[in-house]
């Protein structure tokens, strides 16, 4: 009778290691997915440092300034339009004229040097996005930017994943709103019955024949 090479417990060890390795791989995959969705990777809710602590809550919610006052090209161009120093100074040459927080604005106005802000919503360069068409078809600012009127300092409201873009392109009726509510941050499209939103999709001639979900709609 030859000697046993493995003790009896080896059988159990094999199973424990198989299950253990399986759990480990599963855990690593879950952790990677978790990281991918976490603000650490997506920057959702993470405030970016800016040269001037500009508050949307103050300007939009408290002073009732329309989005377009500063983001003037949002209805006409692909880019919403970042306010120039001239736009800031059209009010701040009159109000808060000695505030130290606004010194970078005054300095920019004096020297003609641009203020360098940090981009919050940065789409990959291989994605084509146009603000004006979304606004014209009844997609409100808050649908993508969240309640920016309630944010003192701006952070991303969406990770901007492709699945999120597609969810709306597949079913625009979920997020469409009347055109005159586009700049109303407090308006919730879900407050309209689904049938009314579907009627808006028809009225605004939003393509529902699959044209919005082809690759080259966004990757062109």
């Amino acid at each position, binding site marked *: 009778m030859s000697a046993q090479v493995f003790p009896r417990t080896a059988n159990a060890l094999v199973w424990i290691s198989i299950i253990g390795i399986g759990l480990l791989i599963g855990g690593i995959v879950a952790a990677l997915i978790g990281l991918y969705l976490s603000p650490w990777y997506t920057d959702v809710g993470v405030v970016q440092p800016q040269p001037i602590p500009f508050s949307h809550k103050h300007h939009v919610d408290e002073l009732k300034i*329309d989005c377009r*006052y500063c983001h003037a090209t949002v209805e006409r161009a692909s880019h919403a339009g970042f306010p120039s120093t*001239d*736009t800031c100074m*059209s009010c701040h040459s009159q109000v808060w004229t000695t505030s130290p927080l606004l010194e970078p604005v005054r300095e920019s106005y004096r020297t003609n*040097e*641009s203020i360098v802000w940090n981009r919050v919503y940065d789409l990959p*360069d*291989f994605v084509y996005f146009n603000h004006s068409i979304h606004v014209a078809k009844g997609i409100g600012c808050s649908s993508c930017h969240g309640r920016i009127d309630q944010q003192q300092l701006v952070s991303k409201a969406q990770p901007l994943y492709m699945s999120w873009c597609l969810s709306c392109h597949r079913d625009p009726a979920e997020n469409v709103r009347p055109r*005159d509510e586009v700049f109303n941050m407090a308006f919730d499209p879900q407050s309209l019955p689904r049938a009314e939103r579907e009627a808006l999709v028809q009225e605004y001639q939003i393509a529902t024949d699959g044209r919005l979900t082809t690759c080259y709609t966004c990757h062109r």
Partner: protein
Amino acid sequence: MHRNSRLRLSSLARIGWLPLCLLLAACHIDMYDQPRYTANQPSAFFEDGRSMRPPVPNTVPMTAEEPDSVLYTGLENGELAIELPVELTAELLEHGQSRYNAYCAPCHGLSGEGNGVIAYRGGFQVPSFHQDRLRTVAPGYIFDVITNGIGRMYSYANRIPPEDRWAVVAYVRALQLSQYADVDDLSAEERQQLGGQ
């Protein structure tokens, strides 16, 4: 034996790219940030640090209208235009209202009385549109003020295109009329609503 170890090496090399894939999956900055400019992106190439280039001096826009037409200058033969160069329609007024409420109302107020939130909070006087001087100015004057600014009001030319400025002019006129209508202009029914004769 020798053949065997060579076989094992090549099969190792064949699956060796798998961990490499995982490593490369995180390196995507090449296509995410392509060597081209997007709007407002800083530039190390141009002296002023801007990738968005200002037009060179005396640039003339390529438009259907002449650059010195009434539509773009508010002037007709050197005089302030007394007629709108665009057709006055209900849509124009509605468009003018949305522009006015976005760009003008912060100071001039929704009704044009000079009592907007910014004027009120900032504590400065903004002239009301409902005064004889402004009721009687030529429409070209209002266009000129939006285009070039006046007093402490900055130019809004870079935010409101000329066509939209005329819509605002029409809407300002409508506002003025709304606060200066004669009761005789109303229909009998409307007068009834006022609780009058």
